[in-house]
């Protein structure tokens, strides 16, 4: 049966090749969109590592790059933190370089145990743990007196502990940041604790390494933070925002400020990441609709051309169901060939490790969705033409010649 089908396909190899090509490209389109969707979904289900309930962000714009700070700016920043804390509506306040869901990030790369490890990092005050509800897994979090240590205490997330120390006990390990010539080297970093996986960029971002450095407020060498995270008491009215802004502006008239609840940043982060997916999905949908209609037309026309062949089969005793099945099987064979080619091509991604962020699960999911939808599309499009073909009367075949 299979050999016979291959023969039929081979006999009309140019037409078949083009159909296979069309299925192949459709498969690729679905695969790309499905994999991106799977990637987002897979990330969404992972633990986030923090909670933004009742947390507001006060963003500071100094109109300067990070390495141009003056010591009194650090002092202003520390005063600002104190002032914000003095509001009745405020539960806790933390200083940091970056806030959850923000677009920009601070990254660094270093050699740890002879391999390159890159990570996102943040300089934070000890209160961040309460503000964002971080969960400590082992070791300890920052505490009073840490800012006076001769070394720099850091807390890392589980991903980084796994990636950097590969099973070794992370607590007490040393890290050193590479520094360009001529710049005062920072003190050595030592890991004092590990928190749960922390994905600052939000639910839709991939897993990644994260490091918290202690922001030493009294230290003139340390740059001022870029944001202040404020956890307010439940039920704080939105008008609190204006009061907060006025107070901040009073402390630091030279800086610009922006206040937003983190839920708002979360919304824009989602929009930013989902828009391309939605646009891609709509375009892919129309492409598939177009392919579907095209396949119906082509199959119908091809079967019309094969009236004699089908009539002959019917005359020699084949039932309608058998003809129907033959046509469907032919279509499934073509689809399989196209899907096979597509799979061979996309299999190069994990084999050659082309795109780092696609995990095996996401890849397999994307592949499965692509296969199922292409087979479904293909079979659906073959149903009507094959039903038409099965209706061919043996007499038609004879008359045709």
């Amino acid at each position, binding site marked *: 049966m299979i050999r016979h089908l291959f023969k039929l396909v081979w006999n009309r190899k140019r037409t078949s090749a083009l159909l296979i090509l069309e299925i192949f490209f459709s498969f690729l389109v679905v695969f790309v969109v499905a994999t991106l969707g799977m990637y987002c979904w897979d990330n969404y289900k992972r633990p986030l590592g923090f909670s933004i309930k009742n947390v507001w962000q006060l963003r500071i714009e100094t109109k300067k790059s990070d390495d141009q700070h003056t010591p009194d700016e650090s002092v202003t920043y520390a005063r600002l933190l104190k002032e914000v804390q003095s509001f009745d509506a405020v539960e806790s306040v933390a200083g940091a370089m970056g806030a959850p869901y923000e677009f920009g990030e601070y990254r660094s790369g270093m050699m740890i145990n002879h391999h390159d490890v890159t990570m996102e990092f943040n300089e934070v005050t000890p209160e961040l743990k309460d503000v964002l509800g971080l969960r400590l897994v082992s070791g300890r979090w920052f505490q009073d007196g840490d800012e006076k240590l001769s070394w720099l205490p850091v807390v890392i997330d589980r991903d980084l502990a796994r990636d950097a120390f590969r099973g070794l006990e992370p607590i007490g390990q040393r890290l050193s940041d590479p520094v360009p010539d001529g710049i005062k080297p920072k003190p050595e970093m030592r890991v004092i604790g590990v928190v749960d996986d922390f994905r600052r960029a939000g639910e839709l971002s991939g897993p990644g390494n994260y490091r918290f450095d202690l922001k030493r407020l009294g230290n003139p060498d340390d740059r001022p933070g870029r944001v202040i995270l404020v956890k307010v008491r439940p039920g704080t009215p939105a008008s609190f925002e204006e009061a907060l*802004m006025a107070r901040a502006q009073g402390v630091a008239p*030279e800086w610009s400020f922006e206040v937003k609840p983190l839920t708002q940043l979360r919304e824009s982060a989602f929009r930013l990441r989902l828009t391309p997916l939605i646009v891609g999905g709509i375009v892919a949908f129309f492409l598939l609709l177009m392919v579907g209609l095209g396949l119906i037309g082509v199959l119908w026309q091809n079967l019309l051309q094969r009236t004699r062949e089908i009539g002959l089969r019917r005359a020699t005793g084949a039932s309608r169901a058998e003809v129907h099945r033959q046509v469907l099987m032919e279509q499934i064979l073509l689809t399989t060939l196209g899907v096979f080619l597509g799979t061979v091509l996309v299999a190069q991604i994990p084999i050659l490790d082309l795109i780092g962020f696609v995990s095996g699960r996401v890849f397999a999911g994307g592949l499965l969705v692509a296969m199922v939808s292409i087979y479904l599309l293909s079979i659906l499009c073959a149903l009507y033409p094959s039903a038409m073909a099965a209706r061919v009367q043996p007499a038609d075949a004879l008359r045709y010649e």
Partner: protein
Amino acid sequence: MIRNYLKVALKVLGRRKFFTFISLFGISVTLLVLMVATAMLDQVFAPEAPEVHGDRTLGIYQIGLRSEQIGYTGFAGYGLLDRVLRNLTTEVPAVERTSILTVQSTAISYLDGKRVESWFKRTDGEFWRILDFQFLEGQPFSQDDEKNGNHVAVINASTRDRFFGGKPAVGKTIAIDGQTFRVVGVVKDVPVLRVVAFSDVWVPISTFKSSTYHQDYIGNFMAILLARSSSDFPAIQSEVATRMKAAEAGIPNKEMYKWITGGADTLLGAFSRIFFSTNSLADSHPERLLGVLLLIMLLFMILPTVNLVNINLSRILDRSSEIGVRKAFGASSWALVGQFVVENVFLTLIGAGIGLVLAGAVLSALNASGAIPYSDLHLNARVFLYGLAIALFFGLFSGVYPAWRMSKLHPVQALRGRQV
């Protein structure tokens, strides 16, 4: 001849309506997507109000500061741009005007306790003479306002609606970002895709809260240079590169960065520089970005093309007797290829027409949805011409192979109506 081809084509299209429908559906959807994309690119790059002189404007959009180990890529500081542009118009006559401006940032105001977010941009007076804003009332602020640090502002129509309920705003004050400005002019909204001009509120640079920005090499500034003609671009670009090189002596944090990268680019060049992380001073290779855009377009067109080729091929049977007759009467293969390609292009153009109407609807829906702030996406002559070019290319691309296969039909078999 062509008229006959078209007559035949119309007849054929009318004969098999289902096929005509699926062909046209595919073509129009494909061209719809491409035309919407073209309209968006047009809004970014085409010289239209307020960037009317976009075709003879260069910009220093992004710079880099580098040493052997580390690098900064991003917006420049005022100090660097001021140093590079100082006296440029007098020393290089090919440069008509220069302007320094900040990147727009969001700024907050409170109206009766309600928070209002606006885009906020600081510029000098020359900005208003390089770009051509449509003023609804008042006028731009001048270079003198910039020199004296006057707290004046130009706002757009939407901001006037938000702050003043749409009533005349000139002479009134607006509190924003912790400062108060007197409104001197109101302009028509500028689409966000106009990256240089776009903002809600424009104020003089010198109203910055602190004056430390004067020396900085890193900051949130960019500059635009109006050339007398685009043929002067290479000369201006090399002069800017020379001045950038000379500015290296003044890098404020010398122990950190040693040299400067980046230069005066066209807008396309600037995007190309960012996309490919090009670091050279002079050349930003805009053609590479064009190449990438074309490649994306081609990749997108593959599937619709294969689909159309398949449909076209299966219609051969319809035509076999016609082809047989024409061949039997001595028509050459070339004549037949020509005929079918013309037919296919004709079909694509009909599809393009439908696509164009649909694109117009999609674009106005996009504008109305507010997904892109103040977007003014529309079909104009330029987009239409690009669309026509894309449609012609698509028609040829998808028509040649089926036409060649059709012309290869053997006349005897064709007359018998055999399969190909």
